[in-house]
């Protein structure tokens, strides 16, 4: 029986449970100096001067400023449509553009000495006018980069604008919504260490999702050959899309090269809240039109993306929002796109979902409003517009080619699992009773794109002298469980017990190449590459066995259940992996039992349906999430236990956006939520048990049948909860509600509806 599809417990757990996690900050590094960054307290200001004398008067303290830094600036990622003139200095020299930008570097003997010295660095700021809202930034009145002449950092989607887009529609609805700014909050703040070797080669230990890409980025920034840099990503305590190479890591390597000493840096949480790039921050305007019998004919989605102070990946993500704007519906005409603009805030990058939850939320809200407008049950409107399950592959008007799906099946499963009719009856009963606590029921059908830019991943299998296997993968795990999932895939192909398969990742000296982990692509790319490399190793092993048995390789078979090679149709002679490896090692032929594979995939499209049940106190505005039923279909599941864990985490993040989290600035660009006290990161007391329901519709695009599941939980949950709160408030005249749907926003919406 195959191990695939089983709820296998994680191989990596014991070291974390015993407190032996190898996070960067835990690694001993003899003689390392501690780096502390002095960060701007102003959102937009000219630096008139920096006085480092008092700090440097402390023993063994050195302070460097932007004038000392002889590399950089960093250019925006070379993505289509991004303004390349908005470059980013590694340390600000003349102007700071957000609170948290680095203005000086303190090098000290330890953490406490570094903090003491950093407090003594005196920076003289001349404040400049500040622009915080993207709408204001789009006016180009206050410019962050005067030499560029505009705040527009990028364009996304299609520039088309048809004035007659909705001419044949019986009903047209329109609204705006803000997918508010969120702080990614991996529990491990970023950490980096770097050491210059006697040969001039630098070893860097990074808390990152992408060690191989980081090596290339570091080499480019430092003017070094990539072979002169080794990046090691040991255990990483979560990333959620945000742990990408940034200025701090570049500076650590630059410092060790300059100082000739090992250096290390770990950000504090309050530092991380402004320095680690944020997510979302998309301002959306949608218009949807269709016939009075529920057929959607046209959809327009305008996206104004807040880029933060320097354009990084977040400026590009509206392209994914535009691509996925059609949702799970066959909509004949779509216009989607917009602009990204810089503001005096922390830069925006990818955060779990990264452009796709925004698309889902807009279309799901639009469908609900359209249903209300024509007086039809929103479930029925969805049914009339779903792409049917026999219509795949399906290319949407927004240009995405969906691989496989059963959207109505997912919705039906969610409705059945939720007991939808009973819920509606309970809601009616509460409404008739007229108390303060009213029920709301919301649903969302969602689609997600994983491996969105059709990447390639590396996998290698090597048989050890003991007859076990090593899997080397260019993919990376910062919590996802690759050491288990990838071992399962290799074990299944090789006919080995999972205990004899070891997964190696995160060291650019040990793994030849790789892309890392983002875009929910690990299993479908890295898992496939490992599996195909294992198949290659089996073929090589057959050749070796054929030599030993004096047979033809074509006549050798691997009995996967027993892990033994033998001649077809003959029980003996046979060789186990252990026997074969031992013999091959003795014959100096063990190296033949090794193979690598690069697998390129094209995007896959997980989907599902989420239903939320909330209780809203219509007097105070307080919202409690009672139930969240999540049907998530990511194709064939390799390890349902781990897949469900990904769903739970994704759903929690989606609910956090709907109900709690919001990273807020005042009009002067001061962050108001820059600690874990001020930022509404939900605890266990704020969330219910999740009702995750499995559904498996394989993708035809890879042999595993697997799509990605890391981010899909964020797609449906946010609009389902948002729709649920609006459903509870509908009898009170509330038609629009800003997220998060916390007590304050709900109360305000109720007061406005009364007015």
């Amino acid at each position, binding site marked *: 029986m195959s191990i695939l599809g089983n709820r296998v417990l994680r191989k990596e757990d014991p070291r974390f449970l015993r407190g032996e996690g190898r996070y960067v900050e835990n690694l001993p590094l003899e003689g390392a100096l501690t780096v502390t960054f002095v960060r701007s307290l102003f959102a937009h200001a000219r630096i008139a001067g920096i006085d480092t004398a008092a700090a440097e008067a402390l023993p063994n303290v050195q302070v460097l400023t932007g004038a000392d830094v002889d590399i950089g600036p960093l250019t925006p990622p070379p993505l289509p449509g991004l303004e390349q003139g908005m470059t980013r200095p590694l340390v600000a020299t003349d102007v700071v553009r957000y609170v948290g930008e680095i203005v000086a570097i303190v090098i000290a003997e330890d953490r406490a000495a570094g903090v003491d010295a950093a407090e003594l660095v005196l920076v003289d700021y001349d404040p400049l006018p500040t622009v915080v809202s993207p709408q204001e930034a789009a006016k180009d009145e206050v410019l962050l980069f005067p030499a560029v002449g505009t705040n527009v950092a990028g364009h996304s989607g299609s520039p088309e604008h048809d004035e007659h887009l909705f001419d044949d529609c019986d009903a047209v609805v329109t609204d705006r919504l803000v997918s508010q700014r969120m702080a990614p909050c*991996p529990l*491990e703040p970023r950490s980096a260490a770097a050491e210059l070797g006697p040969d001039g080669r630098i070893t860097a230990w990074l808390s990152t999702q992408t060690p191989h890409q980081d090596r290339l980025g570091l080499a480019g920034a430092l003017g070094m050959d990539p072979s002169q840099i080794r990046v090691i990503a040991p255990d990483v305590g979560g990333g959620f899309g945000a742990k990408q190479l940034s200025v701090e890591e570049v500076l650590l390597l630059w410092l060790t090269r300059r100082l000739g000493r090992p250096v290390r840096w770990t950000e504090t949480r309050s530092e991380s809240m402004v320095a680690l790039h944020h997510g979302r921050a998309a301002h959306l305007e949608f218009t949807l039109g269709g016939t009075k019998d529920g057929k959607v004919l046209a959809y327009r989605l305008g996206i104004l993306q807040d880029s933060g102070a320097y354009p990084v990946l977040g400026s590009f993500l509206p392209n994914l929002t535009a691509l996925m704007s059609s949702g799970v519906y066959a909509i004949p005409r779509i216009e989607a796109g917009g602009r990204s603009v810089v503001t005096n805030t922390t830069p925006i990058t990818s955060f779990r979902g990264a452009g796709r939850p925004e698309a889902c939320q807009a279309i799901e809200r639009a469908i609900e409003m359209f249903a209300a407008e024509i007086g039809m049950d929103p479930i029925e409107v969805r049914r009339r517009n779903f792409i049917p399950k026999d219509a795949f592959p399906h290319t949407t008007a927004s240009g995405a080619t969906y691989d496989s799906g059963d959207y109505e099946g997912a919705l039906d499963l969610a409705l059945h699992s939720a007991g939808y009719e009973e819920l509606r009856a309970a809601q009616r009963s509460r409404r008739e009773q007229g108390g303060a606590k009213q029920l709301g029921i919301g649903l969302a059908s969602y689609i997600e794109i994983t491996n969105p830019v059709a990447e390639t991943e590396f996998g290698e299998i090597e048989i050890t002298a003991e007859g076990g296997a090593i899997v080397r993968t260019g993919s990376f795990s910062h919590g996802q469980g690759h050491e288990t999932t990838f071992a399962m895939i290799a074990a299944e192909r090789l006919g080995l017990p999972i205990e004899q398969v070891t997964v190696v990742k995160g060291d650019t000296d040990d793994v030849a190449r790789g892309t890392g982990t983002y875009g929910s692509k690990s299993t479908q790319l890295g898992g496939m590459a490992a599996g195909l490399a294992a198949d290659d190793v089996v073929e090589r092993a057959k050749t070796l066995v054929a030599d030993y048995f004096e047979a033809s390789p074509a006549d050798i078979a691997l009995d996967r259940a027993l892990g033994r090679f033998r001649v077809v149709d003959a029980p003996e002679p046979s060789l186990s992996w252990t026997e074969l490896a031992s013999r091959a090692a003795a014959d100096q032929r063990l190296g033949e039992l090794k193979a690598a594979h690069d697998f390129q995939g094209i995007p896959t499209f997980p989907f599902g349906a989420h239903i939320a049940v909330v209780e809203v106190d219509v007097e105070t505005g307080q919202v409690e999430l009672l139930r969240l039923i999540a049907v998530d279909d990511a194709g064939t599941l390799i390890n349902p236990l781990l897949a469900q864990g990904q769903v739970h985490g994704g759903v929690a993040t989606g609910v956090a956006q709907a109900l709690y989290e919001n990273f807020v600035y005042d009009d002067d660009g001061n962050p108001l939520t820059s600690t874990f006290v001020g930022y509404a990161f939900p605890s266990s007391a704020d969330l219910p048990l999740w009702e995750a329901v499995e559904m498996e519709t394989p993708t035809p695009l890879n042999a595993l049948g697997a799509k990605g599941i890391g981010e899909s939980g964020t797609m449906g949950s946010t609009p389902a909860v948002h729709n649920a709160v609006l459903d509870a408030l509908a009898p009170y005249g509330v038609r629009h509600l800003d997220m998060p749907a916390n007590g304050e926003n709900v109360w305000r919406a109720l007061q406005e509806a009364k007015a």
Partner: protein
Amino acid sequence: MTRIALTVNGASCEADVEPRQLLAYFLRDTLGLTGTNVGCDTTSCGACTVLLDGESVKSCTVFAVQADDCAVTTVEGIADGDELHPVQQAFHEQHALQCGYCTPGFLMATISLLKENPDPSEDEIRHALEGNLCRCTGYHNIVLAVQAAARAGA
């Protein structure tokens, strides 16, 4: 510098510490017990939770000098050799950890909870652990693990 003497995971130790040094960094930097992670600077996340004379505390909010004459238990001190503590075992079996960074704090907080309340309800578990934050699991499997550990008599 102040001299302190305490017991950590059953072993006596003495050290000179700066009065301002936090217990979390004393454990990590002075004793090399890096299992106790630091996830914030506002006593919010609970990653650094340890037991101080059997009670759970956030070691980022206790000065090392306050642990003078006390018994400290960290995540490194709860397994019995190769055998995991029942709470560790329950977290493993319920897939209650992903990136693992918050895990030591949750384990210690759970041990403290089950000592005070051997059979907590779901609601009691959620409120007892609200001082510990996790970004990966959505807390679902953590709650199941605490329930499983309670059933196992942890």
